[in-house]
């Protein structure tokens, strides 16, 4: 009896911290089952076997910050039936996209003694700015249960069960007491759900690591933040973090002082 061909999975890294691809290895209870169900063809963080494409599904972590990587992502796309990006770096440029608002040469000179050796682009951009992306999974880091859902859904050809509502909805579902009501500024009303509304459960305001929800009203939230005593600089800072280059957050940050 011939064994059914297993779908081929590839995991790629661009500019990032490795945390989102680590999420796959963090699926301690499911990892061996995943490895049975799919052929892990390319995943250098986990294996020396680096099989050539084509791949059924490429999972891409990290942002594009060098011209070499801008070329490399095109090659990845050509070899991949589906391409899914994971995490704030891949979907929005990540924290390293703060260079987009500055002079990158000055940034390089602040870190390296011989900046002339460092070749880097002026911007950090999401994968979708370079190639077609089939799905973007948000989070800094992503939620590992959602990663398993994305892999299963794509390989089974079924619809994804991941919605675009805000962190606020998750807080209500958990029955968490609203931290804003208690005077703590929170980005929950404009932030994409997925973390499980973690920060409010630790009595902390959400800091937006999952990026903007669909159609967020950031301006209205900024007004509420001011009422709670946040300064324009506080508002600027919180929108300029891990998803600083995501359009709604970028735009809102520009209305507030540095």
């Amino acid at each position, binding site marked *: 009896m011939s064994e059914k061909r297993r779908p081929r999975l590839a995991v790629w890294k661009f500019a990032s911290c490795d945390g989102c691809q680590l999420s796959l290895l963090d699926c301690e209870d499911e990892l061996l089952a995943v490895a049975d169900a799919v052929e892990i063809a390319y995943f250098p963080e*986990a294996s020396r076997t680096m099989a050539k494409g084509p791949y059924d599904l490429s999972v891409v972590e990290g942002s594009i910050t060098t011209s070499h990587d801008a070329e490399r992502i095109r090659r990845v796309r050509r070899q991949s039936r589906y391409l899914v990006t994971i995490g704030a770096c891949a979907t929005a440029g990540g924290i390293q996209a703060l260079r987009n608002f500055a002079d990158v040469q000055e940034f390089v000179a602040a870190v390296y003694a011989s900046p002339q050796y460092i070749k880097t682009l002026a911007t950090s951009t999401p994968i979708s700015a370079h190639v077609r992306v089939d799905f973007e999974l948000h989070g800094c880091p992503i939620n590992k249960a959602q990663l398993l859902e994305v892999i299963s859904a794509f390989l089974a050809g079924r619809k994804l069960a991941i919605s675009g509502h805000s962190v606020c909805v998750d807080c209500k579902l958990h029955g968490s007491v609203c931290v804003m009501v208690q005077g703590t500024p929170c980005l929950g009303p404009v932030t994409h759900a997925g973390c499980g509304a973690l920060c409010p459960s630790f009595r902390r305001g959400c800091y937006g690591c999952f990026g903007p929800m669909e159609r967020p009203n950031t301006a209205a939230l900024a007004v509420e933040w001011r009422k709670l005593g946040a300064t324009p600089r506080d508002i600027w800072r919180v929108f300029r973090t891990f998803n600083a280059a995501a359009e709604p957050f970028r735009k809102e940050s520009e209305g507030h002082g540095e």
Partner: protein
Amino acid sequence: MANKTIRVDYIARVEGEGALDLRIRDGRVTSARLKIFEPPRLFEALLRGRGFAEAPDITARICGICPVAYQMSAVHAMEDALGVKVAGPLRGLRRLLYCGEWIESHALHVVMLHAPDFLGYPDAIQMAREHGDAVRRGLALKKTGNGLMRILGGREIHPVNVRVGGFYRTPSRAELAFLTDDLKRARDLAVETVRWVARFPFPNFERDYEFVALRHPDEYPFNEGRIVSSRGLDILAREYEAEFEERHVAYSTALQSVLKRRGSYLVGPMARYNLNFDHLPSHVQTLAHEVGLGPECRNPFQSVIVRAIEVVYACDEALRIIGAYQEPDMPAAPLEPRAGIGRACTEAPRGILYHRYQLNDDGSILEARIVPPTSQNQLSMEEDLCEVASRSLDLADDALRDRCEQTIRNYDPCISCSCHFLKLAVDRS
């Protein structure tokens, strides 16, 4: 003997992107280079202008495998700048969080990334077909470490609960007690893992390293201690930059951290173990003796045993902290922004991690300096490569390449961490 260049284009089973080049001329290794092509992310530049309170969350994003290390060095450095000392249960909780990170990071490396080298598999998934119990043990350990980080930090990657001064919310005794049974089981699994890895075939290789680690008067080090070395260095974190510097080497653009007076040194589990063996509980010392490890270990391939022993220690220490825990009155010490400079060193799973921040009077960061363990070990890694390869020239190219890769993996290098650690190798032959 022929001239040849052995090259590994992408070192697998390490965190981040690196390659290595080994040049052999007339039967002699003429150069061994670890090339890092990880794109720079410029953290020290983007931290300028941010608030002191943002540093733990921002610097966590340097590394998804050891975010707690970044959070810990950041909070201690900021507290140094602000003149605050965190003590009592909050101090215990910080150690506890670090236990979780050591357990998950070491279990990942020992079982999933390093063990396949010794047993001849491309990865742990292939290895699981014949060593299923060992792999499942490793995954269970990793899950315990991650579980501890989730209870205390909210999640295992980039925890949300750490703040300068303490935590946002401290756990109840019951929440921590919930971890006890799991940690006890994990401790037994860790002991089995020590015995398993100690039976691996180890190349007969030792080097006379200068080990550098923290040393605390009474504890195996996590968050606090003087920076000491096996050749007599004994300084405070605030003296770090007087003794260590990051240098450009002539043949490349690397930033390599060196001891100004003596050059290369080694940080990480082997250094901690050699400099703090006396602070391991006696039953952990007995276990080490039982598997053939004395109070000194200079064989970098045996670092896999030392890491496994540190997992046993971290499980024990976590149980001790949980047993003694009393809920604090306040989750964090109060802080007032002020101008100043703060420095701190803590023990990341891979070795000492140094942070320095200069703050202005409103607590904004004027300057940041971060020296991760992997850039401190880089020179030592290259020296190991040179030595290992020189003694292994009779091996076929493939076997030599494997041995070189394994030599790098001995260090559990964390290349994304080394955000300003970049080397572009040029082979001009």
